């Protein structure tokens, strides 16, 4: 893999140990009465800037719900989520959307590419929404790193699962977000491709000094991360660096 020189993500005066994400007493309940489901039941978590953090848990443990809360894709029943200096609960729906496209990069299990846009257009889609000019040099470096040079004019339905996931990774990186949230990025991939994707995330985290939070149910995949947080029944039960 080619190495890339990138602008530092870190701001002056901020250290590596600063928490980029701070979660306090986060709760998310669905339904009521007998049908009450406690997806998150009081989660406290801090994620350091520039680190690759994996959140592991079995199916139904609340890890996807936690990720959705971190990304502002859902609202908590109680508690708070702060990204950088921004308390997400204080934002209106429109502000949250705009904050998300500027500050947060998503990598979904199902890729969630826009089927009618080409690979290149998918990569720069959040930037286009923001009316910003894409940093072509930077994006091409990511494209080269991810091996997508020959696929830029293709449509998602012309790509394999692994290629689609790499496009999703490129899209997440292209906006130079504060944090990348990856929801089971290897869930739909074979083991070989999975290894490749995880390696890319690892490299990304190191070389771009990118904060990445990944959720997975696979401890082996989680082992690639700097820190592994275990969640069960909506609570953090272990936290290993």
């Amino acid at each position, binding site marked *: 893999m080619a190495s890339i020189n990138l602008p530092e993500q870190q701001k002056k005066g901020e250290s590596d140990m600063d928490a980029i994400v701070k979660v306090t007493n986060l709760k998310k309940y669905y339904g009521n009465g007998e049908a009450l489901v406690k997806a998150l039941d009081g989660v406290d978590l801090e994620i350091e800037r520039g680190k690759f953090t994996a959140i592991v848990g079995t199916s139904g443990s609340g890890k996807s719900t936690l990720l959705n809360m971190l990304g502002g*894709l*859902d609202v908590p029943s109680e508690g708070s989520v702060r990204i950088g200096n921004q308390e997400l609960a204080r934002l209106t729906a*429109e502000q949250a959307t705009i904050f998300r496209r500027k500050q947060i990069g998503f990598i979904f299990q199902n890729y969630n590419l826009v089927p009618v846009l080409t690979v290149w257009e998918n990569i720069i889609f959040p930037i286009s929404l923001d009316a910003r000019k894409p940093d072509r040099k930077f994006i091409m470096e990511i494209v080269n790193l991810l091996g997508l040079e020959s696929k830029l004019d293709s449509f998602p339905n012309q790509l394999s699962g692994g290629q689609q996931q790499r496009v999703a990774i490129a899209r997440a990186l292209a906006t130079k977000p504060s944090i990348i949230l990856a929801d089971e990025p290897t869930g739909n991939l074979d083991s070989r491709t999975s290894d490749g994707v995880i390696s890319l995330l690892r490299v990304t985290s190191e070389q771009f000094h990118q904060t990445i939070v990944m959720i997975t149910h696979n401890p082996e995949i989680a082992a690639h991360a700097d820190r592994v947080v275990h969640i069960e029944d909506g609570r953090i039960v272990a936290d290993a660096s």
Partner: protein
Amino acid sequence: MLANNNLKICHRLMWREFRFHKGCSILLVTALTLVSMLCTFSFAIGFMVRSGLKYSYQIQYGSTSHILYYGLNSVQAASVARHADVKETVRLKVLGLLSDDMLGYRNVKLAVADDGWAAATEAVPVSGRMPEADDEIAMDELTLQSLAIPRKEGAKVQLRWTPVDGGEERVDTFYLCGWWKSPMGYTETCAWVTPNAAGRLCPDAPDYLDLGVTLYRPRNLDRQAQEILREQGADKVPYTTNLAYNRARRQRMNEKAFPFYLMNIAVVVCGILMVYNIVRISTVQNARFYGRVKSLGMSPRQIGRFIVVQAAYLCLPAIPAGWLSGFVLYMVTAPYVLLGTGGEHPAFLFLNPAPFACSALLTWFTAFTACLLPARLVSGSRPAEAMKYTGLSAAIPAEDRSGAKKRRCRVPFMALYGIRRDKKKAVFAAASMCLSMTLLCGFWTQYISTDEEKYMREIAYCDYLIADASTANSLQRYNPASHSVTPELIEEIAGQKAVTAIGTVRTMEIPMYADEAGRAPIVESFEGENEEGVVRKAYMSGSPDWVSGYEKFRTTGEYIGIASGIDGLAESVILSEGEYVEGVYDAERFAAGNYVIAAGASETSFVSTPPIGSSVEIGGRQFKIMAAVSYKGHIITGADSREAAFNVSYYMPVQVFEELFPECGIRNVLVNIDHNSQKEFEEFLSKKIRDTGIAVKMRSDYQWEFGNALFHNYVIPIFVGAVLFLIGILNFANALVTGVLIRKKEMAVYESLGMTQLQLRRLLVGEGLMYGGMMTAFLVPAVSLMTWLWTGWWAVYSASAWCVTWKYSLLPMWIALPVLLVLVMVIPLGCLHMIRKESVTQRLQIVE
């Protein structure tokens, strides 16, 4: 920092969506084209009906100008023309009035040729030209016919006319240089000469002209006309205002057009349902798409723009296609809706951009609303929820939550569960079908309930109404001295085997006087209010001549009475079968010749004649009023004088009438025949009256008018109802297709678990039949009840109730239901065949 500023990406995204989903896009564009077509058609017809009525009022008035001032001098005319409210003016320099008796009721002015006035009054020569030489004249065809002048350039025209300054009648010779066809209703027209000719004919003519004024904003014409004059210091100048802007007439115009505009509500509702149902095929994908783009940072404003652009892309091809097809439909039906446009196609005569603009607006509204609905499904959801949207109710019905019941999972139960899951689909399809079926059944019921025999009995008091030549045109004033209908002709007609009854009507206008006692009941009635609280005389506000005649009667007691001598069939129709307001008709005493029967208004709810038992003097003889009968206007053809617009008719035996007015001719002859001999009798009658100038309204004319009215009132709505019904069927079929296509993966799961093809078919057919059965169970009572209530009300209370024999019918529904039941079986099976082209594993991998 949190600004939201790029909307261009939305346009690109929408364009790609449009191209990528061509099939769905074509379907949507087709649906919107239908909406645009129907809206264009019904608005255009409505506008045409309104404009046609306005045109007919303008014809009656004789000009398109808003106000006509008479007798202004040129300084005053120039000053009026400069008034801030005045848009344009046309001038008429009148030299005099043609005074030939043969012109009858029509006023023909000898005037200096003026292109502007000619255009405003439809008096521009279409054959030949306006006069250029001093001895040339251009005239209208009716005047040429009345004066027996051939329509040939250079034909000699000898005119008797009276100068406008009151000089002696004179005769002058001209040569015809041009002519035109005056609209049939015009009672005034001009004969054009050059300015030099005018100078020669009237060297000392006063500075006197008529001025036609068109305002920028015609509102209250009387007030505006007076204001303009007041500002010129010319309050005494006589004027008239255009009937087409009279409030009562404008109301009538709007009432006539309203039903066509109303149809558009049904069109838009059905259109929204149809487009939405098409969009619903991919509702889950659409909702998840919105969730996806929200998660990537597309703001609500950008999503809003996306929807607007989506609607715009659909409307861009649909609106012009709808305009074109709607216009073609309008062009084909217009001649059957609007008659009497003098050979010009009514579709082009009243073409207006407004219907197209209204249609575009409604089509846009339909498209936008239907495109908005899927986004609204997830508008309140967070992106995480939206990305998982399934469109199916997550709530488990209470009875299914109980674990105690352990049912076997059989195909019929699965079919029922499948339907219960997607109630919205069923509701939308049912609503659309119910609306369109009710409209179609309602209009069909109205069509078959309109009774031709009843119509003929009310409109045509007899099979044939023969009219004197001076009353061939409805606005021609009857000339009592005309004897075109002779006693010999009547004898010949009466002698025909087919004739079962015959009678005659003679009339004479006479100035009469009513004292206080005579006036009182009439004035009380017209000044009083009817059941709706409206002053009765207000209904006549659209007829200024009636108003002026009534005021004269009310203040001075002077009025015009119309003495009518009647016999035979005329007597039975008017008197024996008449509706009496007061008093009783005694045929024997009537025949004795000392009594008359009075008739005022055609209402029976109030008295509009002098009191029963009072005396009136007619032709120097005294008669007692025996009774008051409701006036039957359709018996008499042609017009009476303007002064007789307000009148009271007095019926007397024809022998008495002939004693009083021996020189008076026969105005009308009423004839009834054996209908089996209609064809032969009409051939005989047509031959007899050829080239005599006598006019006849035949039974076949009434039948044609009935057919035309039926077409106008019901066939067009039936057509619109049929198209809406087709839209309803498409909605229904679409709902069936959606129900299978969005469950590709579900079907694959069933197959992977061992469900055979036969079982799958049974499942879908079972679902279809249950769906069809539930639809039928809903539609039959709902449509029956709504149609029964609507047409029941219509048969009793509507303006058409007088010619209706209510025949409640649901025939369109009984034809449609078997079609629906076939569709519910065929469509799901067809869709299953389509989706099974993909393998089970391929379908299992689909992210629904």
